[in-house]
């Protein structure tokens, strides 16, 4: 399918709702082929081949500095924003190479949302935080439609009950865990297909972490979720598939094993995976 018509299709889809979406590529939403990312002259990750299935949660685990976040940022072209970052290889989103010259990275990012390590709400009200993406993407919504979309996103992010009476309050009045759920709501409000999470609970307490893990499980029927974590138990708890990354002797990050989460944790094929998940390395 031509890229132009694909972008048109996605736009129609956003306007009409999910049913209008033609199933282009089967269960595989994102496929990465021979991906290599440079920062300046240094290769950060290399020979990455992996695919992510629709309505599943895939965890990417591995020790610090193995390139997990770099891989994640390659999937919605956030690497474009890092000076000196260069990408070779292919990343397909519904069969379209997102690094092709005709693809607009801004549009890709509205279809593949992202949540970061530290909660980073905007210094606005709770409502305006969630509505932000709808506004910048030029959705033509009435006041009540906007409110419904914001409410939907907050319900999905399991934050609605806590904030419904104070949507006009400043986002910084929320606790850290609430702020991170607000950031998830902000990402979900534009109704992306894929949600990328870069160690979303690393700065949160166990209770907040548990809330976010359970909300991720509750929304996976509607989204495709890719979560980077170096908490192996978290990967085991939330994900259907797990990719294990490890730096090689030149500190180039590679995927050493990918499979169903249960298999990775009970019967790893690679000796290094076994060492990593049993705490001998990492």
């Amino acid at each position, binding site marked *: 399918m031509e890229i132009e018509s694909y972008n048109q299709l996605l736009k129609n889809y956003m306007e009409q709702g999910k049913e209008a979406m033609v199933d282009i590529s089967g269960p595989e939403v994102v496929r990465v082929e021979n991906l290599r990312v440079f920062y300046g002259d240094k290769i950060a990750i290399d020979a990455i081949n992996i695919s992510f299935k629709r309505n599943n949660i895939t965890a990417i685990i591995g020790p610090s500095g193995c390139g997990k976040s770099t891989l994640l940022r390659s999937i919605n072209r956030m690497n474009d924003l890092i000076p000196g970052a260069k990408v070779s290889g292919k990343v397909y989103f519904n069969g379209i190479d997102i690094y092709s010259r005709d693809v607009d990275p801004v549009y890709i990012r509205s279809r593949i949302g992202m949540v970061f390590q530290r909660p980073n709400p905007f210094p606005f009200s709770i409502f305006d935080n969630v509505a932000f993406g709808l506004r910048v993407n030029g959705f033509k919504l009435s006041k009540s439609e906007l409110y419904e979309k914001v409410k939907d996103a907050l319900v999905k992010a399991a934050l609605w009950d806590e904030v419904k009476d104070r949507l006009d309050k400043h986002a*910084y009045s929320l606790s850290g865990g609430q702020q991170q759920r607000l950031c998830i709501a902000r990402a979900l409000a534009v109704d992306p297909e894929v949600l990328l999470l870069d160690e979303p609970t690393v700065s949160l307490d166990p209770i907040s972490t548990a809330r976010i893990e359970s909300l991720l499980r509750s929304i996976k029927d509607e989204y495709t979720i890719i979560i980077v974590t170096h908490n192996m138990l978290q990967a085991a708890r939330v994900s259907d598939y797990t990719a294990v990354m490890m730096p090689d002797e030149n500190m180039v990050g590679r995927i050493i094993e990918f499979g169903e989460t249960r298999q990775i944790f009970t019967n790893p094929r690679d000796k290094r995976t076994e060492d990593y998940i049993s705490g001998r390395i990492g």
Partner: protein
Amino acid sequence: MVTVTTNVERLKKSTDRRRYTDRTFYTVFLLSTLVSTAALIIIFATLSLESFEFFTHVSMAEFLTSTRWTVLFAEKHFGVLPLLNATILTSLIAIAVAAPLGVMIALLLSEYASVNIRSVIKPVVETLAGIPTVVYGYFALYFVTPNLLRPLWEGLQLHNALAVGLMIGVLIIPIVASISDDAMSAVPADLRLAAYAVGSRKSDVALRVVLPAALSGVSASIILAFARAMGETMIAAIAGGFRSILTFNIGESMETMTAYIAQVATGDAPHGTIEYQSLFAVGLFLLLITAALNYIGIKVVKRWAIKY
């Protein structure tokens, strides 16, 4: 076998020396601070004393409500409103120029410019504040008014508030641009990434995230620039003239508070006369207004300040 011993004698000496050095520097720095503080107190005291003399002859009510300022004429009226009006009008024109331009320059510097372009633009903009204001003054009088404004506005007087306001505006652009740029550069990169991650374009990031997040600093820059505009003297004296008439026509000559002070101070008003004292009253009035503006500026920053 190596034994490590501490030379107790030396330890004591070094401690003494450190204490001595610390105390010396503390004293030097404290004295420098005291000198500048003392300058402020002396200025304020002098203005207050002479103003007190002034107000024994002129009622506060006349000073604040009369619409005529004819201190240098035979029939004397002491209403400061014509001077205040001229000061506020020229400053408003200046802010109308400097606020939009300064904020746009700040957005360019903090969001769009590469490191190379930034290193060129920033010093160029800041040079605007370094040009002697007397140059702005005669530039306004001999170039801006005859060559730029008169072709568009026939009845424009040679001395007029518009040219003064425009030139002060150019002078204070760096204040707005520089403080706003600092405020915008202090907005965490996190927030920009968050905006990009929901499909923002660069303009969305600049206008919908960075500008609102830096609003307290931007507002402060505008208030401080306004205070600076009110205090500007040379441009007002040269290009605005010394016509102390209450008018709202910015095409006419009008005398600002600072221009009046310059006029009297460079003339020969003898010590102890009412003309001499009026200078201090106007000076004190101006000082109080600009101090209030600076205070408001600080309040604004504190009230809207965001802790990231």
